[in-house]
């Protein structure tokens, strides 16, 4: 069994007692509740522990001694009801204050307690004893208090705790469940409460803060909506970009296939018209050259390590058609992974074979195709279309830029953004 008394009740009892020039007594009002604690441990599945908690909320002092009992200690129920009035049901015990005496229940207190237990119908009626002890020279005074459970064997003593009275630096401030039964408090709050409380009894400041909180929540929700929308737009754009890339690559394949066929047909014609073969000069359609030069292999790795700060392998701006041969991008970690530089080869000075092969293949292809003009024109025109389409897709770029994601469209269709792509 545990017991607690609110600080103001305790101080009120002490105040009444200390100001009394004789012994003082009264009744304790409060409630008794039962707490059940279930604990599960390795040794046992579950164990429940019941704890009776006595909470003292208030006290009812008696005006004088022998106010509800006679010389023999016989309790007068009428006087008792007159003292308690309608608070009889809240009685959980009674108290007595006496100076310079032992912390032990006296003869009359035991007699009275037994009768109160029966009259009030409280089996576990408690008794709180205050003792005020002073030294002979009155230099030191001690207020001692003991809570008895007299109906138990040997007048069991219960520890009485006062919430928030102690070493508060190591304890949390406890909010007591004691209801405020003070009438004066209620009247003052009722009179001046309108300045602080609204009609629902909630402090106005709290409501204002809650309104601010709600407004912030609304704004956050709106921003969330905007972000969601922008994310969707971005996703849509990325889908479009992806489709365009696929289309470009498809067209490239088609174009390449046609060129091969055309080349083959030309080769057969050239055999018969070797003298008429005209070498393509430097004015050969540069578009074909541009295509040969600037058509990287189809295995372009669009995967970019997330959250990586890898330097772009390509410059941000579209390179002119006469740009130097750019290294073919490869996945990180793959053999011959190009160094993050614009130059050819690996970091050790060697160059990847694939790159060389690509470069060589492209050069051979360039030499062969420089001799042709007609087909190249067609192809170049188609490529120019591709390029023009590439160049004419600033709307897409602009749209991406407008969305705050600067992107650069390469002639090959790759897009690179400053941030990690999805």
């Amino acid at each position, binding site marked *: 069994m545990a017991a607690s008394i609110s600080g103001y009740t305790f101080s009120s009892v002490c105040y009444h007692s200390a100001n009394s020039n*004789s012994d003082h007594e009264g009744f304790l009002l409060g409630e008794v509740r039962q707490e059940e604690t279930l604990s599960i441990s390795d040794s046992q599945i579950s164990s429940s522990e019941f704890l009776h908690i006595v909470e003292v909320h208030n006290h009812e002092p008696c005006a004088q001694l*022998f106010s509800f009992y006679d*010389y*023999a200690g016989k309790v007068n129920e009428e006087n008792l009801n007159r003292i308690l009035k309608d608070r009889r049901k809240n009685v959980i015990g009674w108290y007595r204050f006496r100076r310079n*005496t032992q912390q*032990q229940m006296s*003869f009359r207190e*035991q*007699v009275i307690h037994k009768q109160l237990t029966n009259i009030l119908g409280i089996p576990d009626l408690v008794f709180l004893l205050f003792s005020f002890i002073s030294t002979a020279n009155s230099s030191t005074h001690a207020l001692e208090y003991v809570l008895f459970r007299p109906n138990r064997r040997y007048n069991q003593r219960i520890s009485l705790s006062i919430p928030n009275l102690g070493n508060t630096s190591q304890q949390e401030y406890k909010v007591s469940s004691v209801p405020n039964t003070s009438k004066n408090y209620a009247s003052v709050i009722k009179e001046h409460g309108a300045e602080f409380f609204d009609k629902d009894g909630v402090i106005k400041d709290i409501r204002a803060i809650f309104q601010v909180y709600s407004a912030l929540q609304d704004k956050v929700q709106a921003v969330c909506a905007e972000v969601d929308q922008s994310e969707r737009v971005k996703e849509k754009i990325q889908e479009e970009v992806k489709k365009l890339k696929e289309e470009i690559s498809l067209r490239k394949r088609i174009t390449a296939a046609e060129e091969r066929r055309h080349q083959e047909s030309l080769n057969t014609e050239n055999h018969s018209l070797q003298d008429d073969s005209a070498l393509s000069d430097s004015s050969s359609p540069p578009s074909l050259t541009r295509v040969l030069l600037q058509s990287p292999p189809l295995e372009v790795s669009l995967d970019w390590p997330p959250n990586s700060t890898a330097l772009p392998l390509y410059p941000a701006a579209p390179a002119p058609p006469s740009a130097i041969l750019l290294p073919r991008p490869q996945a990180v970690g793959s053999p011959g992974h190009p160094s993050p530089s614009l130059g050819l080869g690996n970091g050790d000075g060697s160059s990847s074979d694939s790159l060389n092969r690509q470069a060589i293949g492209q050069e051979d292809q360039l030499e062969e195709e420089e001799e042709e003009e007609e087909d190249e024109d067609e192809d170049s025109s188609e490529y120019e279309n591709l390029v023009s389409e590439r160049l004419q897709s600033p709307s897409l770029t602009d749209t991406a830029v407008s969305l705050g994601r600067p992107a650069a469209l390469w002639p090959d269709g790759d897009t690179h953004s400053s941030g990690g792509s999805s």
Partner: protein
Amino acid sequence: MNSLSPEVALSRISPELRPLLCSVVRNGRVGLDSTNCLRITDLKTGCTSLTPGPCCDRFKLHIPYAGETLKWDIIFNARDPELPPDFIFGEDAEFLPEPSELPHLVAWDAGDPDCLLQLVKELLQQYHQYQCQRLRDSSRLLFEYDSLLEDPNYGRSMEIYAGRKNSWTGEFSARFLLKLPVDFSNIPIYLLKDTALDPGEDVALLSVSFEDAEATQVFPKLFLSPSIEHALGGPSALHIPAFPSGGCLIDYVPQVCQLLTNKVQYVIQGYHKRREYIAAFLSHFGMGVVEYDAVGFTKLTLLLMWKDFCFLVHVSSCAGCCFCAVMITKTHRHALN
């Protein structure tokens, strides 16, 4: 514990309560051991420290009982002197008397100086009943009590103190204090007068302590009033027998009582014998009596003459016995002339 003289204690008590305590400290003899008065110690007040004195209204009362000293707290209220006191029975926390059987509590009269003393006596009676009830923890001791209770010579003058049962060893101890029904009234006055203090009533108390419930360790002790002890010849004059193994109080107490009675009778008879003895000498040698002890009849001096041979005869005996010693001193006739 500060033991205060009655006058000092009364001077510190609240004036309204002083008559009650005056009766206690001056006339407060309760129980069998009436040689010890009630004492008051630890005077305290229930008023605030700012209250001017004297205002003590609560104290500790020392009550001799069954060889023990009970220390009961008595609590008054100086601001309400007409109200009856409250009690705290010290270590006997389980002692709870029946209020309805305390007439002087039910009808407390603060104007009656003896009210508190009478109330204390009534409480002691209930305390005695409470101790007798506690003997039920031991059938052996309960038998001793019941057997003594049946004897009217001892049943009405008995105090019992039952000790705490040792929870470790299971031992239970008790003490019986009995007032022996010995008549000391015929003891010569001269034997009783030589005492420093007024001892009060002449009593002989037999204390028998049972250190265990099976009565294997029994320690008897006889307490006599100082005057009786002096009349019988001092502390070493009387030795009581040891408690017989396997014996019981109903056999032992009468034995001790008889021993004491015999001793008293011996003293009385010795006195009478000595008186008769001296009277015989006086009647036969009345003209030759020089001097004699007319109180205790322990000494007699005669002057006798035989054929010009004069001599003094000194006859003496110790108090309490008839043994006489005679000494003859030779003297000359002309010295007597």
